[in-house]
């Protein structure tokens, strides 16, 4: 049986076509085939959230989705969202509030928070904590991340 597949998808607005091993997951595809190393690999069993990327408008675990499943999809990574400026306010709040230390979990954390503000812009601190509870950060203890989300929201005129 052929263990390769041909896929075509849009990543950060650009079209990418590759023949890959069917077993290649999405985050490895982004990193190894496209050189988009901003999405990180932390556990490869769906727990840490470092590989979080956006597929067709929703965040997914890049290690729990085959690249083949993303055939035809619209994929956005931290690099793309940085370039469009969509999350610049969150990024600035992260830097200012030191909501990142080593920075390895940060891209996944930012993508998760970007979805939170779409789905529950007025989230309470505990709701913010629960929404990011699938994103592991060993450095910060999470409090600064919650603060940064609130800080960015406040600057956009939302609740503090």
């Amino acid at each position: 049986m052929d263990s390769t597949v041909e896929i075509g998808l849009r990543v950060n607005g650009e079209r990418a076509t590759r023949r890959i091993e069917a077993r290649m997951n999405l985050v490895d595809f982004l990193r190894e085939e496209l050189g988009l190393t901003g999405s990180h690999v932390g556990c490869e069993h769906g727990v840490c959230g470092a590989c979080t990327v956006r597929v067709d408008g929703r965040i997914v675990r890049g290690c729990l989705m085959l690249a083949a499943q993303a055939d035809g999809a619209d994929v956005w990574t931290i690099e793309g969202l940085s370039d469009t400026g969509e999350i610049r306010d969150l990024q600035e709040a992260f830097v200012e509030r030191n909501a990142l230390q080593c920075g390895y979990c940060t891209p996944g954390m930012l993508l998760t928070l970007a979805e939170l503000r779409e789905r529950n812009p007025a989230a309470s601190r505990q709701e913010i904590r629960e929404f990011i509870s699938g994103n592991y950060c060993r450095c910060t203890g999470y409090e600064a991340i919650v603060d940064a989300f609130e800080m960015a929201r406040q600057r956009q005129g939302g609740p503090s």
Partner: protein
Amino acid sequence: MTDLIADRWLLDRPNSYIGRSVPRPNAPRLAEGRGAFVDDIETGGRTGHAAFVRSPHAHARIGSIDAEAARAAPGVIAVVTGRELAEIHDPWVGVLSHLQGLKSAPQYALPLETATWQGEAVVAVVAESRARAEDAVELVKIDWEVLPAVTDAETALDPATTVIHESLGDNLAWRRNADFGDIEAAYAEADHIVEETYVFARHTGVCVEPRAILADWNPGEGQLTVWHNNQCPHMVQNILATHFRLDEHRVRVIARDVGGSFGIKVHTYADELATVGLSLLLKRPVKFVADRLESFLSDIHARDQRVQGKVAVKDDGTILAFEIDALSGIGPYSMYPRTSGIESNQIVNLTGGPYAFDHYRAQATVVFQNKNMMCQYRAVGHPVKCAVTEGLVDAAARATGMDPAEIRRRNLRADDSYPCKSAQGLPFENLSHQESLAKLLDAMDYDALKAERDALRTEGVYRGIGLASFIEVTNPSAMFYGVGGARISAQDGATMRLDARGNVFVATGATEQGQGMEAVISQVAATAVGVPPERLKIVTGDTEHTPYGGGTWASRAAGIGGEAVAQAGRALRQQILRAAAVMLQEEAENLDIRGGVVVERASGAERIGLDEVGRVCYYRPDTLPDGFQSELVATRHYVPRQYPFAFTNGAQASYLEVDVETGFISLLDHWCIEDCGTVINPQLVDEQIRGGIVQGLGGALWEQCVYDSDGQMLNANMADYLVPMAAELPDMRCGHVVSPTFESDLGAKGVGEAGTCGAPAAVMNALNDALAPFAARLTDMPFTPQKVLRALGKI
């Protein structure tokens, strides 16, 4: 206290950046996903990817190895055994001469005869991709002869127990006995002697970026380049050169972005040395990135201590003596080069540390066992010694009917008693236990909180308050490792250079793993020279481009690396002013640099920009007088000498609620008052404390490497090894007392481990306070719901 060093020139600089929450220069890049972690580095299509056949057994003799099918598998470049690798490297032994009597066996990159823990790398496979290497790993057949596994530290020394390394004679790695004062006299004088046993589980660091190394041997050049997410590039350079028989200047170690380390990435891991050996053998780049399952079985573990403690106290609350007997199993080897004896040594050295008492006895026993290796992880020994001490102090409070805050007030060292020595003879320079406790009680509104707790108890809501005072070892001198023979630099260096456009290049031996070193270095450098931070370029983590230094460990980078930068910056400023003075026909003493401009010291009037100084010195030296040669680069080194360590201190408190039906614990609040001397960047200090607290909370409530009696780790994955996640954690309130060290001009001590040190003790005391109405007591971490229910007699 009076300032013993009058020259606080750095802190008095105009436009100082010290004490300000300056943002980190490297943070925006990381927030955009544009970092350079080891696995992000490209070395082209010839890179081989390593995977390892790991021992499925805790203890087994390696029989014949059949690698034929693996070698023939698609994409496989090589399959390499321990014996093949042993041809090109020398083994290592993890001992230090100042831990007298510590012994260990020679360890190779891959074992030659016997695998001694489940997960030990035994055979290496290199293939064109990691996936294909893993395919081939499954095809390697090893004829194992399974041996009895030594797992229980309590019985490791029994005559009936298998000896792991026959050449060592027994399973005893090290034993230390310490006896200070006259403990028997103290016991005779005491009104109460309280005894309690504390248990600390095995933890591991779970850095979100796994260990990773990319080694590239260029035989034509005789040069080995290694990208490695290690905390100590110069130490690794030395180790690789030594054990692969290379010249040290032909080894370059680059540690760019590091995804968390916490002490995990500071050791000599056999699989990483094997990766270097594979590059040497195969003459091509070879990359190894540990996957998460490998990480749990091969990243060092830590803690795993059983400590019997005793405290002697008088009716008036005066603590007379502490005694401990600690036992730890460290795995099959002592880790190289820091050894696996340090955690126990710290516990012996530091127990009782915040308190004024004179009599102390301790025994620490460290044994070998067939589990993953143990070594230094954030706050080495500190959470153990702190929880033992603070648990015993609370026990003494109960025995004397005294409030936990009051017994601490009575026994904590007085703030005007420094310098002085601990019961163990360790020198304390300048601490603030009393003020820290007072600030803590004030911050938490201790009396109101107690009233709330008591009122809720009558409604069947069980909350507890726990206090913990602590000391932390920071800024280690050569007395920590160097004196024992380890080639680990306690000193650090900094090189600073004025460039032609007036910007300043800074290279430091201190390294960045996310704690914010680049910001700290930039603040000190900017202040010392007199330029805004945006005019600095900071370079760290490259043995080819930074002065020789120790890197980051034991909360040293800001205090030692920062001081080297301060001195280099001052020297560079003086060089610049000498050149400017020549240009301006002015006395250098009358000039200063502020905001990147040479000014008149007295009036602040601008005289000449640094860009102009650079332009003239580099491009138009012909316009300068004969006999004047500008020198615009300075290197300075620094190491503490007066004190072996700069002790810091602080106090933490936890407020929590126990659901007495389910055994679940909810953390409601947490406070930390900390004294790390000069606070260079308040926000970074607080975030070190918060992150550290959460690692301590992890050990108190969730984290444990669970092994069965055959030495199999049962929860070696992220679903089952429970790290703290966002939803269960409280917000944490931080405060400071500032008692600078007089040893350096900067006055900064470390802060990386304070949070981790005190949090488990505070939680333990709060838990037991909550359980007090039930006469239930827990001292066995982690405090799981099941243990709580058992203590309550519900199950």
